[in-house]
């Protein structure tokens, strides 16, 4: 009797436990089912952002091209967005962007690549451990600070060498932009070079090469895809850079190739026009989106090119 009772009690206890567990599980089950859906919804926000960007840019750009012919926009060398006889030609902005990017890359590519070579091939472990965080600081400085630096230090410095340099010019922000991009080119190139296996270096060294020869004949060719991708990403960054050029290059919309002159980039135009109370619905307001769309397409092409290069030409070791 007693025994049975205990057994029965245990039985009910286990049954209770299972029932209780099942009840708990149903709460858990709901979570189990809710969570993936919620997370998926959250994950689609990034896609919605892209769609939002595309939609706003495309619709307003479409409105703009109803008012201004697309041919005039892309071939026009005159940009006078204000006043009664407003003329919208994007070429002055394109040359401004192009020239500042070229100047920036003339600084960033050689210095960035040499820095990468030094860090990856020459520097001792100790030197690398000190230098790399310092370069990261350089990369972490806000662009507005670089803009201030270009305007209040680099421009006056350059003017003491180049007498014809205007107080606002494209040369100084171009150079500073290049300095800003050095850490990016350096660290991406260095990653590419560090992933070249040591056995290849040792092979070349054993044949009697100097370090320089190893670098240029073995490491650089092996890492070339990553290095080029870093250049392309740098270019994309330079095209999209805003505050440095806005502050230090002024807002002159001249169509010129003279680097001592003030020029406006696409990004600086967007800042100037949107900051200046452009009323919604006007051609001026729509021009903002046409320029931004052009800018977006340029940077998108560059980013996809960088991804393509590093994927297509990567050599796996």
């Amino acid at each position, binding site marked *: 009797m007693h025994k049975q009772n205990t057994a029965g009690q245990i039985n009910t206890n286990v049954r209770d436990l299972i029932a209780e567990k099942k009840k708990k599980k149903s709460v858990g089950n709901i979570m189990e089912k809710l969570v993936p859906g919620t997370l998926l919804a959250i994950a689609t926000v990034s896609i919605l952002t892209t769609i939002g*960007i595309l939609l706003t840019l495309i619709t307003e750009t479409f409105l703009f091209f109803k008012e201004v012919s697309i041919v005039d926009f892309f071939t026009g060398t005159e940009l006078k967005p204000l006043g009664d006889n407003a003329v919208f030609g994007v070429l002055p902005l394109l040359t401004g962007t192009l020239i500042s990017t070229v100047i920036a890359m003339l600084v960033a590519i050689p210095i960035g690549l040499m820095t990468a070579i030094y860090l990856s091939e020459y520097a001792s472990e100790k030197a690398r451990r000190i230098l790399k965080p310092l370069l990261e600081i350089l990369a972490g400085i806000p662009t507005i600070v670089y803009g201030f630096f270009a*305007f209040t230090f680099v421009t006056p410095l350059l003017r003491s060498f180049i007498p014809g340099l205007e107080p606002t010019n494209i040369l100084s922000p171009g150079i500073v932009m290049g300095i800003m991009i050095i850490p990016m080119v350096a660290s991406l190139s260095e990653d590419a070079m560090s992933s070249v296996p040591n056995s290849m270096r040792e092979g070349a060294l054993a044949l009697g090469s100097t370090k320089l020869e190893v670098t240029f004949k073995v490491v650089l060719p092996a890492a070339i895809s990553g290095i080029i991708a870093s250049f392309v990403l740098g270019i994309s960054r330079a095209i999209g850079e805003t505050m440095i050029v*806005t502050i230090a290059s002024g807002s002159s919309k001249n169509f010129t190739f003279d680097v001592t002159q003030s020029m406006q980039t696409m990004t600086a135009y967007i800042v100037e026009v949107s900051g200046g109370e452009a009323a919604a619905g006007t051609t001026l307001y729509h021009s903002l989106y046409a320029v931004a769309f052009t800018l*977006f397409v340029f940077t998108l092409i560059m980013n996809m090119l960088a991804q393509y290069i590093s994927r297509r030409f990567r050599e796996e070791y």
Partner: protein
Amino acid sequence: MKSIDHNLVQKKMGSRLLRNKMAKLLFMLATLFGLLVLIVLIYRVIRDGAAWIDFDFINNKLSTDPERAGIMGAILGTFWLMLVVAPVTMILGIGTAIYLEEYAKKGKLQTIIQTNISNLAGVPSVVFGLLGLTVFVRGMDLGNIVLAGGLTMALLVLPVVVVAAQEAIRAVPGFLREASYGMGATKWQTIKNVVLPASLPGILTGTILALSRAIGETAPLVVIGIPALLIPLPDGIFDKFTILPVQIYYWTLDSALVAEYTNLAAATIVILLVVLFLMNSVAIFIRNKFQQRY
């Protein structure tokens, strides 16, 4: 058979070694160039600005009079902005990362989201500014208040948080998950109780770095139309506001008119850099102190 001419090798050796040495020197100088610029930049900013930083400068409101101008408004604005950016970008970023790493099946959707995130990371910040202007400021009719700016910024730095969180989650070793499943835990229980706690240091580090990027961003907020006028101190996320970088921007632009504005801009930069330095130190501290290596 004599394939190597020893004399020739000997003759060339000297110049090869010399070239190697010269190149090494050149590469080192190139590396030091970046650091030299960093030193000059920081020196200039401190020289121009440090003397202007005192209690009044931090505590005063904006003023056209350089002697009385302060940055309390910009500090509060930055604070409220971060109060919007941090939770929004963390929820979106960590949620996306968990979905991509734990739930998404390898396939089209996952590839689309992943590619999309890396492309978003390359979109210039002014374009995000236009998105914010169109959708939040005008579309939802929020006006240029903290909330609109914060949402714009959150989307801008989202890719940084997603990528950092993904890396942190991926670094959690499989045996921890398997042990949890072995104890009868469900997938969500495993993620909540095992994966997230283990990856938290990495996620936090990434988030702080993303926030420090947001604190220094200027362009999107200028595009949204933060006024250069004297506005009352912001009291919450529905107020109009200004932030430190935007303040630096306007003072730098006007420094041609009032020479002292250069000093005010420099002083504000010093404050901004100190804030950034503190945030990065916290990030590095978390990474070193709490990150476990498995």
